[in-house]
């Protein structure tokens, strides 16, 4: 009896981690790209919420959820570009601009999203990976959205590109030392503008997952701060795209512990599991703050590490 309850929780957590982690993955990869170039974007929450609204609206109007995903990315791109453009002006505080963009993005999403709370839009289909097991719970847990795999492929591609391509080198150099980048004839502002815009695109796609797959509808309380958490996630992953995937899975699993414990009747204390990623990140920051090894992984130009 005890064992089967344990298995139930584990399976529910696995399914939950896969479902919950995808938006974390996209905002995390987006933030990672932006921070690699030496800029921080605290406004990805705005991109996420606006992306969720745009994806739902476009999917409803066009009848094709994948068009919605692209449109969500586009809306994220616009917000990211706005952030990137404003931050390149002198004397502007990038952290405060991030909060302002968050406020602007969520406000705009709520404004235009009002008529789309009621109707049902076509949603993204899942890939059924677990049907062969014959176990209903496992089969349900292994219904994986294609965006999950897109995220993993993207992380591998980013990791490879950072290490092996000219563009990857330029982004890393801009992030580590703006002076050297300038000496090499690279436009620091342009690189950061592009990475911020691209990061915003990814966060918008993450929002599309929220409204088109899980939870799978549009309302004003859709996001539970995944966008704000992106910054913590990237610190947790020490600016490495592959580790961003693991961090997203871990954050997702922590979020899934509560509901899975509830499925076997334990409802106490799940807020502490929800807070676990934050507590862990804080401890990682404390442990790595004065360590030389950790300092090597941090983009040198990043304002939050100075």
């Amino acid at each position, binding site marked *: 009896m005890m064992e089967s309850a344990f298995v139930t929780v584990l399976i529910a957590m696995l399914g939950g981690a896969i479902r919950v982690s995808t938006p974390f993955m996209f905002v995390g990869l987006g933030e990672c790209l932006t921070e690699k170039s030496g800029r921080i974007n605290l406004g990805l929450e705005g991109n996420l919420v606006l992306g969720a609204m745009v994806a739902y609206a476009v999917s409803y109007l066009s009848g094709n959820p994948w068009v919605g995903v692209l449109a969500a990315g586009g809306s994220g791109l616009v917000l990211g570009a706005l952030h990137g453009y404003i931050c390149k002006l002198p004397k502007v505080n990038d*952290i405060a601009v991030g909060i302002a963009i968050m406020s602007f993005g969520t406000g705009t999403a709520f404004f235009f999203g009002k008529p789309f709370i009621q109707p049902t839009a076509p949603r993204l289909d899942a890939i059924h990976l677990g049907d062969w097991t014959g176990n209903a719970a496992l089969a349900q847990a292994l219904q994986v959205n294609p965006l999950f795999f897109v995220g993993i492929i993207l992380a591998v591609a980013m990791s490879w590109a950072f290490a092996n391509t000219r563009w990857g080198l330029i982004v890393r150099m801009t992030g580590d030392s703006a002076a050297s980048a300038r000496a090499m004839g690279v436009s620091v502002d342009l690189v950061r503008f592009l990475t911020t815009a691209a990061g915003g695109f990814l966060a918008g796609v993450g929002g599309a997952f929220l409204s088109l797959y899980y939870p799978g509808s549009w309302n004003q309380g859709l996001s539970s701060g995944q966008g704000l958490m992106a910054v913590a996630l990237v610190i947790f992953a020490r600016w490495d795209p592959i580790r961003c995937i693991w961090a997203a899975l871990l954050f997702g699993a922590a979020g899934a512990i509560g509901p899975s414990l509830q499925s076997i009747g334990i409802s106490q204390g799940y807020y502490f599991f929800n807070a676990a990623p934050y507590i862990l990140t*804080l401890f990682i920051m404390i442990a790595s703050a004065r360590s030389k090894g950790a300092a090597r992984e941090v983009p040198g130009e990043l304002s939050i590490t100075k």
Partner: protein
Amino acid sequence: MTVQTAGPAYVTRAPNVRSLKLAESFFIPIAALVVSALLFSVFLLIIGKSPVDFFALVWTGGFGSSFSFQNTLQRSAPLVLTGLAFAVPARIGLTIIGGEGALVLGGFAAAAVAIPLVTNGVPPFLTLPLMAIAAMATGGFWIGLAGWLRHYRGVNETISSLLLSYIAIAIMNFFVEGALRDPASANKPSTMPIGDAYRVGAMPFTDVHWGLGAGVLLAIVLYILMSRTTFGFAARMTGGNPRAALAQGLPVGFLVVTCCVIAGACAGLGGFFEVAAIHGQANASLVAGYGFTGILVAFLARHNPLAVVPVAILFGAIAAAGGLVQRRMGMPDATVLVLQGIIFVVLLTSETMYGRLKFFQPGTGADRT
């Protein structure tokens, strides 16, 4: 601990330079507000609404009658306190964005302290100060922790205060849904209501609760502290150049932690008033984004505690007008959020104009001694 200041360390400025700087710091934010209003008017014209009607309604809904003005003031009370919570550490060079968490945790502490006191019939004049002290101490500890980590462990205060915010919200949820849950609160888990006898009342001649009065008083006290005392001077010097401050023998760690404790106490007090004057209990309604709006209030106020008050009232008015705009113009209540967002973005962009407008620059290099 005494704060030592060195005589010749500051720069002497001609009076006209100072007044030019002051004029600049009035002109640029006001110009930013005008530009935001124009941008929002364009937005309204695109969606086919009249900007004139809209701003007339914002005026009516925010300041038009004594009822609407009191509504405005009511909404601005927490913004004054969270604005101060960002502005004070900003003077010492810290970007603390955890006001939200300090407010939530402070409000929760106030409600938690109230439970045994109210049950045992301790009179309100003892209970309310104890609640306020609990709120300020908790908030102060929470942000003080971010300051301590910053100075003694080298942990970035922006991110740590953001993380601490989430931990604070989780702590409140944990207790509100568990040990301290009032069984009568079915749909929205809450702590036990403190009861009407224990509510913080309105200030004389108004319907506005004392939170605004406390905010204004604190703003004045903190203005004097930061601008007219040795503590404030040392703090601002640390903000300007931490290394020079250390070299001068200033107690930088003490200054950093104290400023953070003050900030957290302000936000915590905001939480106290939300509980004791508005909600009567602690629940998820405390997480209303006041902490984040306060950051932008502080930016518009140029981190000047006195200026935080009128700016908070302005944003209180915009929020108060939301309902009226929704009813009269048939637009979603999120309209005012769009306006707020535009103001924030334009305002922060306008920071780049400081020192660039020829009109406000002194003709000679007199300020560079």
